[in-house]
């Protein structure tokens, strides 16, 4: 008795999902579109040999041999994209956000800086730097590079060897098994989780619609247990949620060469995350009064979860206290688990704790739903 009804419930939910064009687009196409966009602007496939350059304006009001040497040095620096202009235009370009930083070499800068460095006498000339306040991270880098090129220009003018670093620096990305970093892995994990939550949310709301339409009465009048009904819902929501994630990642693997380092670990995290989403969907059905009110509240709850869980922005940019708080958000564990088994190149062991915690969230959500669900119809 149980299995026939169980399979029928799952089949029915899958048919209903597939017949809803809007739900299918939201579940499959939208996360691919947004994941592709976010991945492309946050580093892409990581195989771009051309390093991103900071766009700066340089104003040479001095025109001396030293200042010209500084400008030449800045222009040849592989970290910078230099626009040589006047002070007025430089300010305009920074104010409009076209360029990140402006550097002004004032009159007599070459002579003044040369005297200050070599003879330790006279006032130090002032180097003007102004910047776009939204790009403060780049200012520090530009200041370091300008200092380097000023020192080199002065040394060259004094006929002494150009100073250079007394060591060689070897910076290399570090991932397990030397898996190359791929920003699409994180962006598709984040968007996959976000939209599998939306799918689960919609299916939870569909349960409220079923109640409004009297379908729940028909279901409850049949000799099937409430555990079977809930089990059928958990199964169908889990399958649909997992499909959302797999389609997204399948696309990312095909188009953007995203690699899965532990297939078992990836499936464990993905399935546990989908079960957590199913519990979330049931919770909406259990606590919601009507489809209309439930949709607003649950959409907000899902967005807060994905925001705090690091699906949009990695959690390492959060303040330390917030990083601790977000450990209570299931999405955080899902994102960490998927990151670990994709671009971090880690194995099954890295997926274990996220999987167990996501299953615990699924169990708690489902248990609350069972207790709070309005089973009687009258």
């Amino acid at each position, binding site marked *: 008795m149980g299995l026939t009804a169980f399979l029928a419930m799952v089949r*029915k939910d899958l048919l209903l999902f597939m017949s809803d064009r809007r739900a299918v687009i939201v579940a499959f196409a939208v996360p691919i579109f947004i994941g592709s966009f976010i991945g492309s602007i946050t580093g892409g496939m990581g195989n771009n040999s051309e390093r991103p350059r900071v766009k700066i304006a340089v104003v040479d009001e001095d025109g001396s041999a030293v200042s010209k040497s500084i400008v030449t040095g800045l222009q040849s620096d592989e970290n910078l994209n230099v626009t040589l202009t006047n002070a007025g235009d430089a300010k305009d370009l920074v104010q409009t956000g076209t360029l990140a930083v402006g550097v002004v070499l004032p009159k007599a800068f070459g002579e003044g800086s040369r005297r200050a460095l070599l003879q330790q006498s006279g006032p130090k000339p002032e180097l003007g730097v102004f910047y776009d306040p939204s790009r403060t991270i780049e200012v520090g880098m530009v200041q370091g590079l300008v200092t380097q090129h000023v020192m080199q220009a002065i040394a060259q003018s004094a006929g002494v060897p150009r100073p250079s670093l007394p060591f060689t620096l070897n910076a290399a990305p570090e991932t397990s098994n030397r898996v190359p970093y791929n920003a699409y892995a994180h962006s598709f994990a984040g968007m996959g989780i976000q939209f599998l939550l939306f799918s689960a949310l919609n299916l939870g709301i569909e349960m409220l619609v079923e109640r409004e339409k009297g379908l729940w*009465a*028909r279901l409850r009048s*049949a000799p099937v247990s409430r555990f079977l009904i809930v089990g059928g819902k958990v199964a169908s929501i889990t399958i649909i949620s997992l499909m959302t994630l797999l389609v997204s990642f399948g696309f990312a693997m095909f188009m953007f060469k995203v690699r899965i380092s532990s297939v078992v670990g990836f499936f464990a995290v993905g399935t546990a995350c989908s079960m957590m989403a199913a519990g979330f969907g049931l919770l909406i059905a259990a606590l919601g009064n009507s489809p209309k009110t439930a949709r607003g509240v649950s959409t907000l709850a899902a967005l807060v979860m994905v925001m705090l869980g690091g699906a949009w922005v990695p959690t390492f940019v959060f303040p330390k206290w917030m990083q601790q708080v977000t450990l209570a958000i299931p999405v955080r564990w899902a994102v960490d688990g998927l990151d670990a088994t994709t671009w971090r190149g880690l194995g099954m062991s890295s997926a274990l704790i996220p999987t167990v915690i996501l299953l615990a969230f699924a169990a708690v959500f489902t248990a609350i739903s069972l207790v709070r669900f309005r089973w009687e119809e*009258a």
Partner: protein
Amino acid sequence: MLEVRNVRKTFGPLVAVDDVSFTVEVGKLTGLLGPNGAGKTTTVSMIAGLAQPERGSVLVGGRAVGGDTNPIKKKIGLVPQDLALYDELSARDNLRFFGALYDLSGAALDTAMSSALALVGLADRVRDKVKTFSGGMKRRLNLAAGLLHDPDILLLDEPTVGVDPQSRNAIFENLEELKRRGKALLYTTHYMEEAERLADRIVVIDRGRVIANDTLSGLRGLAPAGAASLESVFLTLTGRSLRD
């Protein structure tokens, strides 16, 4: 076949059903009439196992109805007041789902679907999505879904709301055929002429209590001299004040 014994149900301070008793016999249709909020739907819900009576019992063939998985529920078919169908699915997929809830599958399910669809005259629309059906067709499919597992007792909660005269007449003919097949039918309605045409016995319920339980001719005897219609009897019993 169906025996409702002294059932009571409250919702907070509201007594929805109080000490209600009646029976429905094999091959007979019992009409359950009452104004809005009288307790008809709550009574049907308790019979169908959707709500538990706080007192009293519901018996089918002498066995109590109760518990989610009680096999006795297979003897009861529910036709809810709402069109309890999935609009985005075909008639066949709807019936396939509802049949599976009663453990029907394979050839048995196909036979049950064919029989139910033939009875309600929708055999040629089995592949069409329900959203393409007219209101009357949906009502008939709603009836077919309740009949699929061949229950002995059919609970019909206002099954003709919003349908045209042709579909209503078709549903009446279906119900008369079911009576001939020996089904016990409980029929709630606001339409007095439907009860007059179909019911072998009429139970009038008001404010949660049974205020009359008799045949149509027996009820007519309760009305003032000269009142011949069931509606006038009903208004005599329940009063003329509005029940919003």
